[in-house]
């Protein structure tokens, strides 16, 4: 790459101009908007619409992890926890909404022999409250865990392991039937979404469009964020936290803020995911699922938000297709992909096309 090109790529600019210089993100945002418009104008078969909507939810989840891992160097192996918080609260809303409209209690409540929804479900039939509760809960759990970890300087591999332990403990908790959250069967049989019958073509399309638009907004928003002074401090913190602290910046606050933001984005992904699959159970808290999120990001290209989206869509697209065709082979294919990326393409699939929005982003970190 010539010096002039480098200089042009690295030239200082306002955050907006910078985002435009990231053609991958700009292209993906455009693609999301076009796909959303396409679904509204000429929707394909509902199962395809649904698959697209689920992929968009996974892509949001991948972006949330890339934000903390790629830009801040914090590898969470427990992001499924925040995804699940969003998903569970969304499921509670859908069931509470169903009860409010139809008066019929969900199966698992009847199975427990209860005469009504548990007390703490109160108000969850109101969607705005459920949305705020989901995001606040994810943010709060992230805050408590992040504060404890970052203040005592728990970093790197230790943080990853503890985050994994956290999601595992949450899974054990959710397997219990007396939590009032469906126990090991989870929650399913959501009758209605905003009064509309779940599974009707309009609802399926609406959910997919909402997921695509959210993805576009999250992708654009996070890209703008990493282009600001805060984003530069994130990269600085990732590459040399002590150096940044000794320049007078509280890295604890920086990490905590971005960590909570990431958790809330993951919860948003869970909120969008659950009505599209129609079920949530403790399996979303399985440790291997949280690891898989990291795999999507690593495969697509760590530290490039567009790469995270590509990784999530590619791996999950492949999974949708292959786990139907040959389910036994999927774990081996996934492992093979990981090995390929680790050995051949250390910066992910974007290496294939020589994609380097800012050439040295990762070189210094490794």
């Amino acid at each position, binding site marked *: 790459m010539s010096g002039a090109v*480098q*200089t042009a790529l*690295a*030239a*200082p600019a306002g955050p907006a101009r910078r985002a435009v210089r990231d053609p991958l993100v700009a292209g993906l945002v455009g693609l999301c908007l076009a796909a959303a418009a396409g679904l509204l104008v000429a929707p394909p078969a509902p199962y395809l619409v649904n698959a697209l909507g689920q992929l968009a939810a996974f892509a949001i989840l991948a972006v949330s992890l890339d934000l903390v891992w790629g830009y801040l160097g914090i590898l969470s192996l427990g992001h499924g926890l925040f995804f699940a918080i969003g998903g569970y609260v969304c499921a509670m809303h859908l069931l509470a909404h169903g009860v409010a409209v139809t008066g019929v209690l969900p199966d698992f409540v009847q199975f427990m022999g209860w005469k009504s929804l548990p007390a703490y479900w109160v108000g969850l039939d109101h969607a705005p409250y459920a949305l705020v509760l989901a995001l606040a809960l994810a943010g709060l759990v992230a805050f408590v865990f992040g504060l404890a970890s970052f203040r005592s300087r728990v970093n790197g591999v230790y943080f990853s392991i503890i985050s994994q332990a956290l999601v595992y403990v949450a899974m054990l908790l959710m397997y219990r039937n007396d939590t009032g959250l469906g126990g090991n069967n989870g929650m399913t049989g959501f009758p209605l979404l905003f009064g509309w019958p779940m599974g009707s073509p309009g609802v399926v399309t609406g959910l997919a469009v909402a997921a695509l638009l959210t993805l576009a907004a999250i992708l654009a928003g996070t890209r703008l964020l990493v282009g600001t*002074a805060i984003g*530069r*401090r994130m*990269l*600085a913190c*990732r*590459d*040399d936290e*002590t*150096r*940044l*602290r*000794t*320049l*007078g*910046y*509280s*890295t604890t606050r920086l990490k905590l803020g971005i960590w909570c933001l990431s958790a809330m984005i993951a919860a948003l992904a869970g909120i969008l995911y659950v009505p599209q699959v129609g079920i949530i159970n403790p399996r979303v808290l399985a440790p291997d699922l949280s690891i898989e999120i990291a795999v999507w990001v690593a495969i697509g290209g760590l530290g490039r938000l567009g790469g995270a989206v590509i990784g999530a869509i590619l791996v999950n697209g492949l999974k949708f297709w292959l786990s139907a065709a040959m389910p036994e082979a999927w774990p081996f294919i996934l492992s093979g992909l990981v090995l390929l990326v680790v050995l051949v393409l250390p910066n992910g699939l974007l290496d294939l096309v020589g994609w380097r929005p*800012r*050439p*040295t*982003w*990762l*070189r*210094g*970190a490794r």
Partner: protein
Amino acid sequence: MTALVVDALTVAFGRFTALDAVSLAVDPGEVRAVIGPNGAGKTTLLDVISGITKPVSGRVMLGDRIDLTKRSEVEIARAGVRRKFQKPSVFPALTVRENLEIGCGPPLPARDRPDRIASVLGEIGLGPRAEVPAGRLAHGEKQWLEIGMVLAAEPALLLLDEPVAGLSDAETAETAALIRSLRRPDRAILVIEHDMGFVEAIADRVTVLHEGRTLYEGSMAGARAEPRVIEVFLGR
């Protein structure tokens, strides 16, 4: 007033005593060099002053007011202390200009930063390289960039850990001139260095450390005449 007082500082790593009751005082406007063989405890001394390592006992007073041993790195930096690390520590993913912008520190309002950055770029001679990612700089350029980063905050106490390590003779001479130009009545500079010629060129006084203890304090000429110092530096 004294700019910096290190008072009976003792640091231990497990059973190993890296600093053993070290004391020194630096006046405002002074350039002090700390010299000593490898492993003498020089970097450890800077680690304590900048809050990275906590001592077993002793105090480090900044401007007679603040005991730095009781503060975090962030608080110490905000009190006006900046430190250049022995291993050049710049942010590789950011450009030279972005590194300097971070170096300006949180208190400097954003609108004042471009001027400050421009003047620092001039001082460290990296103006033409302003938009290059720091990860691409040559070793000497990284050393200078890091000096620029710690300068950008206009520190009252500047700590420089081996600023000319790995530099050519010409670069060393330039760096000596740069450090001399940083001398100000309200600023104290503490430089750690092996290169005796360099120390002679920049320092008002030297402190010789050896195995965690102060061996000598005074002029460089005096250090050269001191038998114990000669013994420690034999062969240099």
